[in-house]
């Protein structure tokens, strides 16, 4: 996994509450068996006028001019400003894959749906919860000046607004550690294999019916 330490980037404001995973990446694109290539269909129904198809070239498609990511000033954005309950709905990891593939490194919102929030960390994407007033301030500042950048510092757990205002955010130590170092979760868990085996041995005594082999 790509490490995340400190990132400074253009912010795009998506002023919509309850953005669900079907909006982030519609179901027809979930048929891929790869992890990459979802960026061109990120927010497909909000971004384009027509219904997108997997494997379709997106360059000639009619776009919705008013959608934030279609505006010239937000091209190349890597920090997404969002509203409450971002990422609600399905557990599809295609949602963070699409955001990452598009070029986003961090999403800032007053709240996230649990599964989506969790999935972001597995993909080097940093979801940040700030107080609604702080998110409001970021929305205002970003609207004010074209090219406004936001600085996200994971080490110090701070977000710096375009005007220099600094907001602190909370993140679990373990997730922070993995993200800072780009660590593979699975490798870390496998270091605990003795503990897992001990648990299994005890459980096999307590609840042997949980370990029956399944006949085909």
């Amino acid at each position, binding site marked *: 996994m790509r490490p995340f330490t400190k990132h400074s980037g253009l912010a795009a404001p998506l002023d919509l509450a309850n953005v669900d995973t079907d909006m982030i990446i519609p179901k027809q694109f979930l048929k891929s068996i790869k*992890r990459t290539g979802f960026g061109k269909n990120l927010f497909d129904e909000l971004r384009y006028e027509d219904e997108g198809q997997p494997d379709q070239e997106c360059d000639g498609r009619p776009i919705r001019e008013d959608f934030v990511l279609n505006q010239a000033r937000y091209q190349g954005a890597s920090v997404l400003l969002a509203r409450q*309950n971002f990422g609600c709905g399905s*557990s599809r990891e295609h949602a963070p894959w699409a955001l990452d593939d598009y070029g986003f490194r961090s999403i800032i919102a007053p709240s996230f749906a649990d599964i989506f929030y969790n999935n972001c960390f597995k993909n080097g994407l940093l979801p940040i919860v700030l107080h609604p007033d702080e998110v409001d301030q970021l929305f205002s500042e970003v609207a004010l000046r074209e090219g406004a950048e936001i600085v996200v510092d994971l080490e110090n757990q701070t977000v710096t607004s375009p005007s220099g205002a600094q907001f602190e955010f909370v993140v679990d130590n373990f997730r922070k550690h993995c993200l800072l170092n780009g660590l593979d979760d699975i490798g870390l868990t496998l270091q605990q294999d003795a503990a897992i085996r001990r648990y299994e041995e005890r459980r096999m005594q307590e609840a042997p019916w949980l370990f029956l082999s399944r006949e085909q």
Partner: protein
Amino acid sequence: MSAKTLYDKLWDSHLVQQRDDGSALIYIDLQLLHEVTSPQAFEGLRLAGRKPWRVSSSLATPDHNVPTTKTERMSGVDGIEDPVSKIQVTTLDDNCNEFGITEFNMKDIRQGIVHVVGPEQGATLPGMTVVCGDSHTSTHGAFGALAHGIGTSEVEHVLATQCLVQKKSRNMLVRVDGELSPWVSAKDVVLAIIGAIGTAGGTGFAIEFGGTGIQSLSMEGRMTVCNMAIEAGARVGLIAVDDTTIDYVKGRPYAPKGEQWDMAVAAWKDLVSDKDAKFEEVVVIKAEDIKPQVTWGTSPEMVIAIDEAIPHAEDQKDPVKKEGYARAWKYMGLEGKTTLADITLDRVFIGSCTNSRIEDLRIAAQVVKGRKVASTLKQAIVVPGSGLVKAQAEKEGLHTIFEEAGLEWREPGCSMCLAMNADKLGAGEHCASTSNRNFEGRQGFGGRTHLVSPAMAAAAAIAGNFVDVNELVKH
């Protein structure tokens, strides 16, 4: 020892290792796999040269992409017309073969929606931890199991380590007191709950559903309630184990037998919250107050009782809600409409992991029996949750009742719930659907979904618009 909630008990019994920062390593007893969220996980294993930790803990079946028409299903995977879907289903078959995982493939009568198949086979047992790369895994909480959806990276993590890194959720109790009115079902209960607490109301919580209104439900009904816990923002929905649970599990193919059964039942009796267990939030709903529910907007919380007027954006005080309502009104094409009865329906879908079990089909059949689908409808389809549900329904003659009424009887799968196969809505079409999400585009580009119970969907199919099923069955 302090009193524990059911969730606390399940958490404690699966704790492998507690970390200082509050996260923990939790052991997973059962992982269900399907074709959409597993290919990248298997690929990850291969790339790292890893093997599954315990293959017998996994069970797979294709469901999201599978076609539901007889002609396409006749020749199994080869019959799938959409080449992209076909690759995904084939990939699941190949991965299960390669890693030695039990799979009910498209030709197996046990194939179906993972959340129908797991309980049906007795693979889902009380007291287990159950995960699947699908948010509706909360369904299995109906058995007093700790069950929730995970992303693909976590699917891979569970395959490789049998564990998940988790942070404990907070405890919420939603109590439904009293007795449900006639024709009011589990679906109406859970929609009413979501209407009351909102789609983010359960975020960060494990919700235990309790009270007489829940205890009186069958296992099918309880699964419907827990299925939609995620629609209230809670990854986990739970219901305490009682005789209804144990009777359902008994004799199922993967359920323990003999001495192990007795041992298991003794352990399962403890899968209830202790009397004085503390919940951080308690929500109480009166069962008698719940009427048949219909969603009018593009979020499950945009729900009203059948006799209520559709709420207007202008009447909302909260600016976020106001904007959301305005957007939903526009998307749903509600201009000039005041009640649910004013909406002319184009399609009806009875199916999905929420409502495709035998009880759901029996209720829908009871409503349509001897009646005809409205001529204004373009289509009404019934999609059973599994091959075994289909077989049981056919044994009872339900398929004949549906077909005589003018509904199509299909092959099992997720179907029009998320329209990853050929079953979908056209732009602007209104659908009465027994599924779980009414998000924009969920059932097809520009499609307009109204979530309802099987009885209400059946009544809507007959009337061509929304009616109170109680009124319909009187005539």
